[in-house]
């Protein structure tokens, strides 16, 4: 079985400061890892993914995430947060070796960037 944990319900950060949103995962095989962002009253937008290769993945809007196999983590980061980054962020995992295409999502982390 695969699972994802986002330990923080909410992250508050001042504009211009670094932003980190934490995600840990559990899969029996090799993971595909994803980050999605959801703005109010909108669907989920794809930010970035890790499949293989470089552990540091760069995505949309200046976000990046680092895959750490030993810690089974895939934390999302942005060096300098903007007020417009305030949204709900979801981490998701798919087991590469598992049958089917099921994505398992974390519970989401609400990010509030204050001016």
């Amino acid at each position, binding site marked *: 079985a695969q699972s994802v944990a986002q330990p923080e319900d909410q992250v508050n950060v001042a504009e211009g400061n670094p932003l980190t949103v934490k995600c840990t995962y559990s899969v029996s095989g090799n993971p595909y890892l994803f980050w999605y962002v959801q703005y109010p009253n909108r669907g989920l937008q794809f930010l970035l993914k890790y499949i293989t290769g470089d552990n540091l993945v760069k995505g949309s809007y200046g976000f990046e995430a680092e895959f750490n196999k030993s810690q089974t983590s895939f934390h999302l980061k942005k060096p300098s947060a903007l007020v417009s980054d305030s949204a709900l962020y979801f981490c998701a995992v*798919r087991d590469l070796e598992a049958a*089917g295409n099921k*994505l398992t999502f974390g519970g989401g982390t609400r990010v509030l960037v204050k001016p």
Partner: protein
Amino acid sequence: DARVTQTPRHKVTEMGQEVTMRCQPILGHNTVFWYRQTMMQGLELLAYFRNRAPLDDSGMPKDRFSAEMPDATLATLKIQPSEPRDSAVYFCASGLSQAGVRTQYFGPGTRLLVL
């Protein structure tokens, strides 16, 4: 700019009524997913299709929910009869399955309220 579309965006109905939600996947995508998002359960996968065939609907209450793909450009999710506990946001996502779906692209969602 290709995107997944969903109709209606909002639906208010009375308990016992039939609800039909529609999704148009991105042209060329052969995999369609239905998710439900609630505060309590987060994002849940209800069903998914590949090449119009249902592959997994284990997340869907069978007695009242049904999902179909009449053709490659239309996916439907039907609830009959609807109940207040079905109130949620329903998302459709599509992807291209090549050795597994690498990225899912989400629609804006249908916000359902059952009174």
